């Protein structure tokens, strides 16, 4: 629990059973993934995929925040606290 890997949605289509499916690209490897749980997703978006299902759409703005925070921390560190190596 729970291997979820981010990949980029390259195609979206409805299959014969009316289920939204898509092709997701993981660094060049493509796999068919069920997109039924991420109805808001568009081609070019990134999704987290677990056992062949997209369980969320990656929020790219939030993803960047981790690094903004680290940058802030870095700046603070330079200002007052000596960084132990």
């Amino acid at each position, binding site marked *: 629990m729970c291997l979820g890997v981010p990949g980029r949605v390259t195609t979206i289509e409805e299959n014969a059973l009316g289920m939204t499916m898509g092709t997701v690209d*993981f*660094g*060049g490897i493509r796999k068919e993934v069920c997109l039924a749980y991420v109805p808001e997703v568009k081609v070019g978006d990134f999704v987290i995929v677990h056992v062949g299902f997209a369980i969320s759409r990656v929020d790219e703005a939030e993803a960047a925040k981790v690094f903004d925070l680290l940058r802030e921390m870095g700046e603070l560190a330079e200002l007052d606290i000596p960084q132990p190596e």
Partner: protein
Amino acid sequence: MSPTAADFEHATCPIPIADYPHVLLAHGGGGRLSQMLVERMFGAAFSNPALDERHDGAVLDLPQGRVALTTDAFVISPLFFPGGDIGSLAVHGTVNDLAMCGARPAALTAAFVIEEGLPMDDLWRIVRSMAAAARGAGVPIVAGDTKVVDRGKGDGVFITTTGVGVVPAGVHVSPRLARPGDRVLLSGAIAQHGVAILSVREGLRFETEVRTDSAALNGMVAAMLDVGGDRVHVLRDPTRGGVSSALNEIAQAARVGIHIDESAIAIAEPVRGACEILGLDPLYVANEGKCIAIVAPEAANAVLAAMRAHPAGAEAAIVGGVREGPAGKVFMRSRIGGERVVDMLSGEQLPRIC
């Protein structure tokens, strides 16, 4: 007059498919049908002076030197996969085993155990592929055997290859010879073969083709040994069990510690992607066209250059080194700067969901 490569590139099956669309028990029985298979298919495709004698065994004129001998059984399923098949795999695998002993391969034999019912065209495809692989490596297939077993008692076809070669004077390779201070070289990107096989197995299919890296390494190894001589201490091809198994075996045999750097190990993006989604560790995934070399430090750069000059070693790199200890263990510096033990795999690595 021996047929050339061009004769077989697009040749149709020499056994009349209309009459024999599938391999029958009689094709292994030693009678007329057997002979047809040997003459028209194997004999014609593999043709070379030793084989053409049609003796019970091949008589060879080998150069002076220590003789290297190796054998391997190939039972892979599916028989055909992106970039290769059981035939080319068999030839490359045995040629490489000889090369890893420091030998120049001289000849191969091939024994086929065919399951009754195998489509004749599949057999022809495999034979053609073996012939091409053997020609590409410059190593003739000089003897062989064919048996056919009842339907259900085989997996299409099993192939056993044996190879003989000669180790030139001044070459001494053995896993026991790794010593502290040596550099660990790796000839290119890992995990390609294992992912290629998984990609055609039911239930794990990808929409992208990942081709096996199966290739003959004898040319590259000859160049490495020309440059490095006896300063090339160990040669090993990381097949089943991946780079991890190969390095662990060497560490144990030589009673040294091997330390590698994750960021120095090449891996193709799609192969990495496949390992990520299946939860596989690329260090444990099979390779069929890669070579690990453990080389004395003063010769490492020259051997590396020799590898890079060869198509099979274009992405070769120094990935680590040998230390006194901890003896028998392999360590890897991870990308984030931490250290982890790279242990022997137990059993087969299974794709995981967690």
